[in-house]
């Protein structure tokens, strides 16, 4: 990764109704970085999926989600951090999981890189990168 990064952060309550607001943040950042419409759409989807997972799976914590945007000269990166462990979907959930399990594959299909990592304080961070 080359170039200096400009970093912007928002912090949002873990509720699916806030996803639209997060997408406005993605859109603004991506428009400023002069991305084309297709890439902006893909980033909105990928960030929404990561945030929807954090809302659903981070374990009923009330801690806010943090979304950080980094714009480098060759790529744009959005990091979504929550305060819960990454979990394997429970067996009960998995039967009748007809429409589940689309989120992570969709992120990976749309982005150039998706990194899922443990944060030092026991949370989960998903970093979504698109080359410019």
């Amino acid at each position, binding site marked *: 990764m080359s170039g200096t990064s400009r970093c912007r952060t928002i912090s949002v309550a873990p*509720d*699916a*109704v*806030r*996803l*639209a607001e997060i*997408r406005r943040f993605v859109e603004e950042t991506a428009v400023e970085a002069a991305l084309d*419409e*297709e890439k902006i*759409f893909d980033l*909105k*989807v990928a960030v*929404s*999926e990561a945030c*929807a997972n954090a*809302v*659903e799976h981070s374990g009923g914590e009330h801690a806010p989600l943090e979304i950080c945007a980094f714009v480098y000269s060759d790529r744009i990166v959005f990091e979504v951090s929550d305060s819960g462990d990454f979990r394997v979907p429970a067996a009960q959930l998995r039967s009748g999981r*007809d*429409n*589940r399990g*689309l*989120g992570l594959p*969709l992120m990976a*299909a*749309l982005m150039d890189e998706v990194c899922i990592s443990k944060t030092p304080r026991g949370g989960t961070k998903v970093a979504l990168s698109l080359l410019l």
Partner: protein
Amino acid sequence: MLVSTERLDGLPLVIVSGEIDHGSSGTLQTELDPVLDEGATIILLDLSDVTYIDSGGISVLLSAVRRLRNEGWLAAVNPNANVRRLFEIVGLKADQGFRLFDDREAAAAAVQKLTEQ
């Protein structure tokens, strides 16, 4: 997201506008359920004014497609280029229970042709 249901040539026509995401997809599901329950085999879904969709919305479409697949299809009308691209990525476009049309008339004509056979 806004959603309403009308009829076109006797077929249910569900019209959606705005963003279909994990927060709003439940409302779409609630609109589609009674249409599916009353036994519709073809549902027209006008997506002209849908600006965004993700797996939240796609899950709802997949449920409908699964229920319609054996006897009919879900007809997505005029999704924008990005929405269309996403339908392709998730495999909806290749599903036999799903069809894409450029406008309502083309969808209705395809149904007409089907009933004439």
